[in-house]
């Protein structure tokens, strides 16, 4: 434990890693990165590195889980043992089980499940390095992987965390800011539907801070949404135009 901790925000409103309060970390988003799955994506946000893959629609299994009028969606958010400081023991933690649930519920909101009765769609999110914002980055990659798999959706969705650090609302908190900050609020939206698909809060915010945080999240999500669309168009133009990279 350090005796005197460095301030997280300088007097001129810069963060430890030099970012402005409303600035997200460098992002890289790619579609179609894994061959075996029906759709896949890769995302990097700072040092956070995540693969997502989609299998399906396919026969639901075991059979009694099949729904007569729609597909079921399964989702597993999982972290590699080496993805975190120290070493995570193999096996799903309670945190991973909870995040799998909220991510699945977010995606169930946008996938048109009624198109595939009696079938199942499996979504696998593998965090190979975790450096804050993994649930929202994982969701962003998973949404892209669904689109890459050609599964019909109402909209893409993307997510990002907002935080409260030393009294200020910041976009896309780093791990250090997350750990030492006052609040962390992961948000995901389907922008074209004008809707929130994921929303959680750890830590304390009053009503007006909450509104500020939500607006800031919207700003970041719009950027990610654009990157998702570019990644898709790059993937599909690459497939149809011979000779292109």
């Amino acid at each position, binding site marked *: 434990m350090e005796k005197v901790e460095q301030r997280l925000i300088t007097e001129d409103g810069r963060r430890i890693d030099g970012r402005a309060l409303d600035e997200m970390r460098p992002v890289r988003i790619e579609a179609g990165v894994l061959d075996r799955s029906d759709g896949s994506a890769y995302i990097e946000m700072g040092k956070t590195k995540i693969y997502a893959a989609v299998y399906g629609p396919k026969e639901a299994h075991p059979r009694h889980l099949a729904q007569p009028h729609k597909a*079921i969606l399964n989702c597993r958010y999982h972290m590699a043992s080496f993805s975190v400081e120290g070493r995570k023991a193999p096996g799903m933690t309670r945190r991973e089980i*909870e995040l799998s*649930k909220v991510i699945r519920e977010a995606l169930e909101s946008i996938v048109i499940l009624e198109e595939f009765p009696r079938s199942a769609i499996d979504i696998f999110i593998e965090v190979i390095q975790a450096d804050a914002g993994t649930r929202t980055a994982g969701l962003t990659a998973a949404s892209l992987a669904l689109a890459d798999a050609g599964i019909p959706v109402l909209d893409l969705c993307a997510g990002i965390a907002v935080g409260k650090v030393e009294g200020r609302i910041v976009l896309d908190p780093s791990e250090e800011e997350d750990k030492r900050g006052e609040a962390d609020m992961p948000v995901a939206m389907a922008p074209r539907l004008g809707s929130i698909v*994921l*929303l959680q809060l750890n830590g304390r915010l009053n*009503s007006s801070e909450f*509104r500020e945080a*939500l607006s800031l999240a919207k700003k970041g999500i719009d950027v990610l949404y654009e990157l998702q669309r570019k990644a898709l168009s790059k993937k599909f133009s690459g497939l149809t135009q011979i000779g292109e990279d």
Partner: protein
Amino acid sequence: MYRIGEKPYPSKIMRDKLYELILRGERLDGRRPYQYRPLELKTSIIEKTDGSAMVNLGGTKIVAGVKTALGQPYPDTPDQGNIVVNAELLPLASSFFEPGPPDERAIELARVVDRCVRESKMIELDKLVYVHGRTVLVIYIDVYVLDYDGNYFDPSVLAAVAALATAKIPLYEVRNGDVIAKTESRFGLPVRKFPVSVTVGLIGDKILVDPTSLEESAIDTSIVLGWSDDDEMAAIQKNLQGLIRFDTIDEVIRVSREKSVELRTKLMEVLGRVGAPS
């Protein structure tokens, strides 16, 4: 993968009927949209715990118990006591629940209760350290759903908070590095906040609070908001599939805040406390 006992397909007819009622300010069970079901709260019902509470919210019945023990702090918080929350959706409470280890819903419930208690700073955990980095108080909170008619979040938070607020622990003394319990006298935990959660159901552009099991299968989605005091949220959890329209958010915050004050007032009455703790 972890979806056990998933609820049946919400019938479109039921949804439309509920929406129509809400438009008229009514509900299936006669309540108004922003009205909770009758709430009963009893504390100190399990003598073998350090603190316990039973809550009935309409047809949902929760029992929570608190036990404490000495233990090691977590490496990253050597100067704080520990909180460990476990929740179980007992199979006797509903045909939606199955025996076996906690499923994703039970884990989510435990973690939401945990966040309400922890992030609200309800307990002054730094006062529960006996030997820095080595011996602290560990507080186990176990929450059981005994009967389930929707909305297990709010009564679970109430039961956990009431059990904590009424818990009595021994006085611990440190002698030559050993921590010794003086069991003859017991004291309350250092409580400074009384968090409550409010579950809001969304249906189109309308909202309601405290949904029943039947309503849960008809609404579009729902969200749980944990208020640490009248002015501050400590936890939020959107917790069913479905969309939350941007234009409903302000009303969700406004109503949940209002209901949180109402629930906290009721809680303080039962605890025999008025206003903020000393």
